C-alpha cells in the first residue's frame, strides 16, 4: 500500500543534508509520496528503508509484458476501478486460440488472419495481440510442432503456450523463448516444474486455480520459487464468475494492498455461440481482464471488440484530438474544394476517411474545438462563425487557392449566413449532414 509522506519521512536519515536537491528530508518525503521524485536521489538512505519503500512503491498490479519487440503488449499497472476516476492504463490484449490438434494448414490460416488483423482507427493501430496455442492433444511433440509452425509463420506475434504438462512446456518454450511467450498452466500439482521452466527460460507464468483461495496459495508458492511475472486465472468461466473474480481481484489489489493477486488477469471467453462469445469478451474488456481469449477472430467480431477496448481505455477527461491545420487529402489543385470540420479525432477520421474513399482531392480545414465533435462544438460555442472566420483568415489559405468557397457540415447549416458576414467575399456552401454523404456530394461537384 502507498505510504504517506510522514511515514516515508520516518525512514529517511533526517539530516536535512540537501544532497537530494530538496531543502529537507520532509520535503523530499512529500515528493516521494506523490511519486514525483525517486528514492535514489538520497545517497544516504539505509538498505532497510530501501526495502520497505521499494515494496510500498511497487505498483499494486504488477506490470507484465506479453511478447517481445515492437508488438509486445504491456499488461497490469492499473490504478483505479472506474474509468471516470483516471484513464485505464494498459488495454486488454485480445488473443485467439489454436489447438495442436489442428493441421499445419489450419494453423497457418489462423496465423495469417492474425497477421492481417491490423486496422487503423482514429489514428491508432490496433490488431489481434496474441495467439494462444493449446496442448489439446496432450502430446509434447505435437505441441512443440504446432508452436514451431506458428512461430515460423508469425514470428513477431506474442504467444501464450497453454499446457499443464511440464515436458510439453519445456519443449515448446524452448522453441519460442526469444519471443517472450506467456507459459500458461501452472497449477496445484505441477507448480514446481512449471515455475522451473519459466525461470530457466525467463518467461512469465500463467497460474490456474479453481478459486481465489487456491489462486492466492498458488501465487504465493510460485513467488517463493522465484517467479515474479505471473498472470492469473481464478478458474472463472461463466460471466457471473468472471465479473465476481475480476472485481474481487482488482479491489483486493488496489484497495487492500493484496500482493498475492496483484497481477494481470486472463479470461477465457470461448463459446460455441459467436455472438455470446463477443459479449463475454466485452465483459472482460470492460471489467478488468488483461487478456481475453477468443475461439475465432472473424473481422466483425474483432472490430467490435477493438472499438469497445478503445472506448473503455480512452482518456475520459480529454478527447482524442488532431492539430488545427488545413490538411491536404490527395493532391488538391488550387481550385479543389475546401471543407471545414472539428478537431475531434473521431470526427476528423470519419470525414477524412469518406473523402479518401471518394478519390476527390480536397483541402480539409480542421478547427480546434478542444476535441469536441461538430455538433457538440457548436452547442458549446467552439464551432462558431467567428472562430471559423478567424481560422480561415489567419491560415492564409486565401493566397493558396484560386476560389473563395467553404463547405460546412450540414448539421451546422444555420451558421452559413453569419460566416458569410464575417468572411467578406466568401461563399459558404452547406454540405451533407452525415459524412457518408460526402462522396456523392463531392463527385457531383466535379462532374
Amino acid at each position, binding site marked *: 500500500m502507498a505510504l504517506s509522506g510522514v511515514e516515508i519521512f520516518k525512514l529517511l536519515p533526517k539530516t536535512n543534508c540537501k544532497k537530494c536537491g530538496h531543502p529537507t528530508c520532509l520535503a523530499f518525503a512529500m515528493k516521494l509520496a506523490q511519486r514525483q521524485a525517486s528514492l535514489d536521489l538520497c545517497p544516504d538512505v539505509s538498505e532497510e528503508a530501501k526495502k520497505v519503500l521499494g515494496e510500498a512503491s511497487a505498483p499494486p498490479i504488477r506490470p507484465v509484458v506479453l511478447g517481445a519487440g515492437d508488438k509486445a503488449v504491456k499488461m497490469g499497472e492499473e490504478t483505479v476501478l472506474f474509468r471516470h476516476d483516471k484513464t485505464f492504463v494498459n488495454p486488454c490484449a485480445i488473443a485467439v486460440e489454436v489447438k495442436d490438434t489442428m493441421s499445419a494448414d489450419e494453423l497457418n490460416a489462423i496465423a495469417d488472419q492474425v497477421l492481417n488483423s491490423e486496422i487503423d482507427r482514429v489514428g491508432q493501430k490496433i490488431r489481434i495481440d496474441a495467439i494462444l496455442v493449446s496442448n489439446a492433444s496432450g502430446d509434447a511433440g505435437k505441441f512443440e510442432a504446432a508452436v514451431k509452425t506458428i512461430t515460423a509463420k508469425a514470428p513477431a506475434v506474442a504467444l501464450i503456450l497453454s499446457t499443464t504438462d511440464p515436458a510439453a512446456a519445456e519443449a515448446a518454450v524452448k522453441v519460442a523463448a526469444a519471443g517472450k511467450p506467456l507459459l500458461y498452466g501452472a497449477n496445484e500439482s505441477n507448480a514446481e516444474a512449471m515455475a522451473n521452466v519459466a525461470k530457466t527460460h525467463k518467461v512469465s507464468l500463467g497460474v490456474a486455480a479453481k478459486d481465489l483461495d487456491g489462486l492466492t496459495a498458488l501465487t504465493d508458492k510460485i513467488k517463493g520459487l522465484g517467479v515474479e511475472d505471473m498472470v492469473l486465472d481464478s478458474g472463472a468461466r461463466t460471466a457471473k464468475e468472471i*465479473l*465476481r473474480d475480476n472485481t474481487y481481484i482488482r479491489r*483486493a489489489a488496489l484497495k487492500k494492498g493484496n500482493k498475492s493477486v496483484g497481477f494481470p488477469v486472463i479470461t477465457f471467453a470461448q463459446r460455441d455461440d459467436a455472438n455470446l462469445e463477443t459479449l463475454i469478451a466485452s465483459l472482460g474488456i470492460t471489467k478488468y481482464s488483461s487478456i481475453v481469449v477468443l475461439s475465432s477472430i472473424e473481422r466483425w467480431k474483432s*472490430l467490435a*471488440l477493438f472499438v469497445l477496448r478503445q472506448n473503455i481505455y480512452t482518456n475520459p477527461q480529454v478527447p482524442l484530438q488532431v492539430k488545427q491545420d488545413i490538411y491536404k487529402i490527395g493532391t488538391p489543385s488550387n481550385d479543389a474544394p475546401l471543407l471545414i470540420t472539428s478537431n475531434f479525432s473521431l470526427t476528423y477520421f470519419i470525414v477524412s476517411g469518406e473523402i479518401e474513399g471518394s478519390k476527390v482531392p480536397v483541402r480539409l480545414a480542421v478547427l480546434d474545438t478542444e476535441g469536441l465533435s461538430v455538433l457538440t462544438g457548436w452547442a458549446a460555442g467552439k464551432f462558431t462563425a467567428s472562430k471559423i472566420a478567424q481560422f480561415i483568415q489567419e491560415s492564409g489559405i486565401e493566397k493558396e487557392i484560386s476560389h473563395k468557397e467553404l463547405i460546412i457540415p450540414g448539421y451546422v447549416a444555420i451558421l452559413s449566413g453569419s460566416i458569410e458576414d464575417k468572411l467578406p467575399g466568401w461563399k459558404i456552401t452547406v454540405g451533407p449532414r452525415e459524412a457518408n454523404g460526402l462522396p456523392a456530394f463531392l463527385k457531383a461537384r466535379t462532374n
Partner: protein
Amino acid sequence: MAFTAPNETFAGKVFAVDAGLDKKIVFGGENVLPFHLFEGSVPNRPVIAYEIQDVPPADWPETIRKAYDAVSGDPVTWAKHCQDKLGAKAIALRLVGTHPDRENRSPEDAAKTVSDVLAAISVPLIILGSNHVEKDAAVLMAAATAAKDKNCFLGKAQEENYKTIVAACMANNLKLIAMSQLDINLSKQLNILITQMGFNKENLVTDPMCSALGYGLDYTYSVMERIRLAALTQNDVTMQMPMLADVGINSWKAKESQASEEDLPIGGALEPRAISWEAVTACALMIAGSELLIMRHPEAINAVEKFIDELM
C-alpha cells in the same frame, strides 16, 4: 492462504419499477453495482424492449429493416409479431411519424396508434415521441390519454418539455422516462424538477442519453457508472431511478451497422457486424448500470438475453 473477499455494501438502492398489467415487468431494485450478486441483492434482471414504430421503417438500414419486412407495414402486426413470435417481454413504440420533418402525423393519429397497439398486446408498452421537443409535448399528451391506467411508460421528457409530459403522466396514471444530455448533474436536476411537480420518484426512469459503440459510448458508459455510484454510495434519492439505454436507434446509425463489406473490408460481413454492434453497445451499458434497454435486432436481443442468463 485464504483470500479475503473485499465485499462492498451500500446504504443506497435502486428503485424497483414495474410496468404493464397482465404480463408485468419489474426491473431495478438492486442494492449493489450491476450484477454484483456476490455481495448484495439483485432481485430483477434487466428488461429488453423490442422497438417498433408508428410508420414503416423506410429509414432503417437494410439489415434491420429486412428482419421485419413482412410485419412492419403496420404497428399492430409488428407489435404482435414481436410479442408472439419473438417472445418480446416489452414493446417500445416510437412515434417517429409525428416528427414535422417526417410524416408529421397528428397527436390524434398517434393516440389512435397507441390504442390499437395496446388493444393487441398483453406485454407492457413504452411510448416514445419523435424527439422533437415541441411536437412531443402535444403528441405524448394525446398518447397518454389513450394509455390511461395501462401502466405504460411515456417519454421522453426533456428539460424543455417536461412540464406537459409529467402532467400527462400524472393525469393518466403512467410512468415516465426523462432524458438529459450526457451529464450527471443535468440528469439529477431533471429528476428533481420532475419530482418537485409532485411526480412519484419511484415511477421514473432516467435516460442519461445513449450513444453507440465507437460514437460516444465512452461518455454514456461513464455517466451511467457515476449515476449508479451516486445512488449507492451517497444514497442520493434523486439518482436512484433505474436507467434506460436506447440502444437500437443509436447503434443502427453507426457506419459499422450499414456499410457493406466492400466499403468496410476491415469490418468483415455486414450482418453479424451490425448485430454485434447493437449487442456490444447494449452489453457495455448494462454493465455500466442500465436495466431497461430498447433494441431492434432479434439476434442481438437473444445474444444479450443469453449473456444476462450467464450473469444472473
